[in-house]
């Protein structure tokens, strides 16, 4: 069999675009999983070598290593890989909405190197956000290799993003949901199918190399009393308020620091790193991503006073590192702060005595979820994330109550979501997933009016009250007035719609003279 025979045979194999997309999703998952494994290993090995924070070998190295790491990371981003700067989530969204899913390969290398050095040297930032962008980069690279269409390219970046974040958290459902909820704000079947395949294959790959260990090892817990839910709701309120304050603090810090001179590009990360090192002399737990400390806290290593100190210290150093534009993500610090604050609340509830007494680790998990929901405004992701990391079904009920409370409180206190706020500061106007969820399209029932005189419609030219005005506009280009009929009784005419009515509903037309159908102008 010669090579031309093979080519002839291959030519007869037809792979449709959706099938190719699903196969690519599998490849994206595996590549992203491998990349995250290497990223994870690099961060860990760097932290052993430079910090020795937890091994206690070089205590005073803590003082300088974050500063040096931050400067090196910024140098890499600014001089070698300029496309790797900024928030991974926002950069991925930019790629989807502004550049047809294009994420350069240098972004992957830049994010990998800069963030590994920055986090590995002890700066208080997390590896998930860079992992998300690296996943999107891998997806984009593969999409380009296989010459995907422009629309498919726009869809492939979120697939990679899901794979990246799923592998980073070791939680496939969280990866899927976060991309659906925050990056895409869309639940189309094609996207869901590919994202699921990518997220699962990434997590499987990651586990094949790093083991099946969950992100957190949580001792068993059970809901002892229904009245405990009140305490969880209170934690939700507190988590919401704290997360709103946190976003606000980052907003102010970023704006103020952004006005400083050019020295800030290297000077601020160095100062931030040094301050992190200073805090790290007393609280080494706050350095780096901090998952080990969360694990220790979940096993009751810290008294409630220590939990409070750790939450405050981590908030401070994260605020400094993140506002100084040191490369790294915000997910891990948010989980850390939420866990410590939640644990402190739980311990205080225990001290008060009359309140129901679940174990402190339950409050930590709930606190983790509330802070995540409040900062990132991804309540469904936050619920499933806690569920996945704890592998406890019992936790779902408290987490649902607390996280949704935190979400609403945070939204009320600080209406701009974290990623949108960052995008605004960077001068980019990206569609906010939260707004997308909130804003529903206008429908015919919001614009139609009573029938003034019956009109004869061409066959098929009729609208239903729940049709969107976009669909109505297409028909109105063919006919001036269109009848609106009931779906159940198609002979029953409920009203009619003209171009004027549509314009009025959109708020761009002069006030119409015809009376609106009573009770129908609901919006």
């Amino acid at each position: 069999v010669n090579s031309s025979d093979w080519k002839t045979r291959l030519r007869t194999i037809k792979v449709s675009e959706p099938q190719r997309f699903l196969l690519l999703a599998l490849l994206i998952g595996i590549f992203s999983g491998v990349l995250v494994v290497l990223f994870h290993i690099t961060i860990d090995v760097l932290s052993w070598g430079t910090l020795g924070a937890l091994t206690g070998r070089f205590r005073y190295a803590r003082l300088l290593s974050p500063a040096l790491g931050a400067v090196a990371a910024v140098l890499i981003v600014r001089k070698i890989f300029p496309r790797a700067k900024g928030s991974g989530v926002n950069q991925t969204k930019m790629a989807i909405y502004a550049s047809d899913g294009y994420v350069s390969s240098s972004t992957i290398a830049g994010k990998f190197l800069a963030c590994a050095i920055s986090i590995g040297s002890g700066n208080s930032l997390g590896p998930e956000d860079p992992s998300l962008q690296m996943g999107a980069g891998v997806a984009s690279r593969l999409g380009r290799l296989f010459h995907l269409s422009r629309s498919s390219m726009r869809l492939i970046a979120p697939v990679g993003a899901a794979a990246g974040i799923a592998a980073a958290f070791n939680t496939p459902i969280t990866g899927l949901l976060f991309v659906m909820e925050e990056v895409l704000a869309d639940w189309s079947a094609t996207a869901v199918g590919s994202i699921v395949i990518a997220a699962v294959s990434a997590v499987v790959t990651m586990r094949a190399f790093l083991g099946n260990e969950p992100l957190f090892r949580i001792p068993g817990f059970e809901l002892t009393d229904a009245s405990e839910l009140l305490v969880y709701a209170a934690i939700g309120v507190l988590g919401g308020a704290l997360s709103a304050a946190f976003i606000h603090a980052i907003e102010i810090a970023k704006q103020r620091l952004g006005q400083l001179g050019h020295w800030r590009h290297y000077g601020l990360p160095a100062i931030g790193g040094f301050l992190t090192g200073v805090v790290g002399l007393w609280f080494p737990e706050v350095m780096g991503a901090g998952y080990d400390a969360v694990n220790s806290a979940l096993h009751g290593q810290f008294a409630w006073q220590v939990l409070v100190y750790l939450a405050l210290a981590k908030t401070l150093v994260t605020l400094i590192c993140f506002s100084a534009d040191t490369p790294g993500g915000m997910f891990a610090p948010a989980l850390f702060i939420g866990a410590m604050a939640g644990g402190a609340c739980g311990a205080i509830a225990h001290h008060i005595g009359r309140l129901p007494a679940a174990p402190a680790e339950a409050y930590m998990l709930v606190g983790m979820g509330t802070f995540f929901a409040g900062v990132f405004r991804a309540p469904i992701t936050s619920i499933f994330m806690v569920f996945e990391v704890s592998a406890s079904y019992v936790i779902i009920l408290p987490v649902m109550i607390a996280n949704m409370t935190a979400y609403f409180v945070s939204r009320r206190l600080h209406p701009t979501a974290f990623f949108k706020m960052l995008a605004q500061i960077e001068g980019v106007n990206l569609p906010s997933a939260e707004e997308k969820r909130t804003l529903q399209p206008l429908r015919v029932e919001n614009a139609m009016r009573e029938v003034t005189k019956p009109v004869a419609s061409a066959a098929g030219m009729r609208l239903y009250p729940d049709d969107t005005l976009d669909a109505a506009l297409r028909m109105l280009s063919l006919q001036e007035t269109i009848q609106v009929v009931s779906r159940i009784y198609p002979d029953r005419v409920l009203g009619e719609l003209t171009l004027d009515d549509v314009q009025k509903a959109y708020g761009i037309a002069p006030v119409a003279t015809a009376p609106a159908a009573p009770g129908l102008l609901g919006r």
Partner: protein
Amino acid sequence: VLAVSHTVRTIAYVLTALAFSLVLAGFASSAYHRERSLLGSRHFRSGSWSAGHGQLADAVDQFRKALLFAPDEEQYRLALAESLVRLNYLPEAQGHLEQLADEDPSNGRVNYLLGEIAEKRGNRKLAIERCQRAVYEYWPPEEIPERRQVRWHLVRLLEAANRPNEVVGELIQLNASAPDAKERSIVGFELLKYGALSEAGRIFRDLEANSPKDAGPHRGLGEVYFGSGDYISARHEFIHARRVDPNDQESTQWLALTNAVVDLDPLLPGINAAERLRRSQNLLTRVVHLLTTCSPGVPGDTNAVAELGTANQLLNAKKHSESQADDMQQSAVQLWRDRGRFCKGGPVTDKAVETAIARVAGE
């Protein structure tokens, strides 16, 4: 539509890249795991050394570090939990132990440590439950002696919770797995405390047969006979014990008591009617003496005075018939039961009288 030749090249390129990255990740992760495991075991060894030398705080620190590098090492977690329990850092210890219990609910040591935590927190019921689980769950063969220690701990907890039947059950188990005669002897005496005479008797007979030169089994057997009312056999065993070990104070005391009881017991098998009358007289005399020499009880208690009067009449009668033995015994029993009315400073105690009265009263 993709150009086929281009696609083939692309697929080959991607597959090569995939193979390369998998191999790279494989090497990297294997070296990473090796290093982690090495660091973990280094800290574990250091922690074990510290724990062995009583430096528990340092041991805890080292075990925590070991766990950071090797979080799936149950041995490290257990060692940390054990040190934490010793240091009274109970919440953290409990966190680690509950995780271990989730992973392996049948681990005896984990359950025991959880029981110890419950006991330290004053939750005796839970402590018993955990210790029971610990005793009946798995222990590695080399840790069997520790399992026995746990059972002894359980016995103490059950004693404190006033659950004698369960204590006896555990003691029987302890006897079955006792490594030597000394421990069996201890179990035997513990069984005696809870009235498990037949089990104790079996143990002491075995011990006596195997080591006749040991005073302990003789004394234990004597106590078994004493408890079952066979005072003559008991006296025989106590005498034997004293002969084997003349310095055994306990045997001496038991022998004195047994002699006293034998002298007072009117129901001793094989005695004639005259002897029975004499012992009944002795018993009543002893009771009256005890009640009249103690601190006076309720002044002017006419019933008490009448009872004492009746007893004195019985004792002071010029001629005693053998049929009066029963009356004397009844009077002695009644007086003894009412001794609280005669004596203000708490109930009078006299082991020999008490034993004889209990026997007469059929208790």
